[in-house]
């Protein structure tokens, strides 16, 4: 049972860290990019855009179609 709790804490910590980074990135002077900024940077190329959009679509398929 303890391993299950550790697992959940691990997922929660990773996701909470991402929210923290997003919050910090939205402060004007921060060097940390927001999720939108680094995703936008990755999508500057056609291949990068395709990969990011494919990842988005996969999430929808994974959680809502199966």
């Amino acid at each position, binding site marked *: 049972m303890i391993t299950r709790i550790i*697992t959940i804490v691990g997922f929660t910590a990773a996701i909470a860290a*991402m929210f923290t980074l997003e919050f910090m990135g939205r402060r004007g002077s*921060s060097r940390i990019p*927001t999720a939108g900024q680094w995703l936008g940077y990755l999508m500057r190329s056609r291949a990068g855009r395709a990969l990011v959009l494919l990842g*988005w679509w996969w999430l*929808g398929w*994974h959680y*809502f179609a199966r």
Partner: protein
Amino acid sequence: MTAQETREPGRPVAARWPGGRPRPVLGTLAVLGLAGYAWVASGLPPFSGRALVGVLIPGAAVGLMAYGRPPERIPAPERLDLTGFSYWAICVAALLEWEASAFRDNSLSWHPSLTALIDPLIQPHPVRGAAFLVWLLAGWALVRR
């Protein structure tokens, strides 16, 4: 100098379709339409052809918009601060590794995957519909990048 040139990089001026002025009524109607679609699509039985079509349609629409007729895009930054981005990379890698180790252990009760944890949470139709709507809006946000 246009609004496009004066905006802060990475920050939108206003939601608008190409070359147009902001249309709050149209935007509200669009969100309501997406919410209706999310409600219907999220109620389709999993592992069915209809559920697959329910996610294929937004995927095709986003693909067409992204490559065919994109809306006014929020300019991407010219460069990323490597240190700042590395924090994101570490978090994403940690999440993926944690998920991969769940599959490697092959014991969902001891080491559940993120999917196994999230699926029960989004089973109620209103929650599932809201999650579907968030997914649709995320797709729209990506098209604008």
